[in-house]
């Protein structure tokens, strides 16, 4: 499973920037059956966290209503240069991370 984060390469201090996140995940609902009729166990991402320089900037609790390969878009204020850390956790306990850095100019 992979993920990607899109941030502007640079921002001015105080600027509102758009953050886009795409995570590759099947988001298996638990309501489906395989070809031999046995139910496919539920496995969805339940928590998505974004922390900027250690400070939480977004926490999302999602469930089986979200389509496969979740896409999120949110805004934050650029205050200082640093790194955005994305973490997601699914029902199987798999934890994935992805990082992206941002340069903030005066």
């Amino acid at each position: 499973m992979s993920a990607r984060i899109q941030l502007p390469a640079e921002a001015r201090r105080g600027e509102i920037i758009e953050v886009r996140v795409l995570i590759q995940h099947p988001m298996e609902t638990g309501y489906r059956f395989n070809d031999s009729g046995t139910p496919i166990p539920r496995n969805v991402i339940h928590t998505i966290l974004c922390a900027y320089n250690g400070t939480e900037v977004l926490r999302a609790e999602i469930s089986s209503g979200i389509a496969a390969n979740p896409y999120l878009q949110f805004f934050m204020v650029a205050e200082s240069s640093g790194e955005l850390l994305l973490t997601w956790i699914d029902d199987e306990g798999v934890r994935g991370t992805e990082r992206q850095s941002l340069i903030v100019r005066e």
Partner: protein
Amino acid sequence: MKALILIALVFCAVPAAAQRRVIPPSDIKSGFEFLGPDLKKLQQDDFANPGTLWVDRGEKLWRAAAGGDGKSCADCHGDARTSMKGVAVSYPKIDERTGKLMSLEARILQSRVERQKAPPLARESEDLLALSAYITSLSRGLPMEANIDGPARRNFELGEAFFFRRRGQLNLACMHCHDANWGRTLFEERISQGHPNAWPAYRLDWQTMGSLERRLRACLSGVRAEILPYGSPEYTDLALYLSWRARGLPIESPGVRR
């Protein structure tokens, strides 16, 4: 008498010609044109288009060693951005050594087993889709140009016959939707012309990436016909006919489809 025969011939010829009616070149439209504005935007957005996740994975796999000799695709073919550019436009294609018509997926599997000495990838597996999506994406924007001369002619004719033959409980041929009724509404969707230029594509119905072959299987299921197993030559023959029919349309893979 001569005139009568001529008239009779004309009347005989009309239904056959009508059945083989093809879309005039000026009306050829990619499946993209039949999408809503939201999906058009999604396909064109290289960040949000989920198909690009498979393309990225394919790029990594291209350089990853596999099999007994520990060779990667790149060890023989070099940088795919130059060596594989434009390769996808002419698939399916006759393999010179075996003389068989091969889809890009079949070609990747052949290389993997014979050159890399690696176990074959399963059809529709993430890795096979990733490689074919990556290679096809390197031809993005280039026009499709299937070669139907020489040994491919026979496959082309079989594919064409498949396209026009009625099948399934609904007793429909491909042409009944995609030649005769494209642009009209079926349930809540507009019927496309059935061109293969966006495949492998991310299909919302599947919530994942899939090959053209999987899409053709979905069509067979739609008309309640027998679904042929993966790798059946019928799919490749049909894909050759479809590629010829779509000649000139730019490759869009990874496309986004409903």
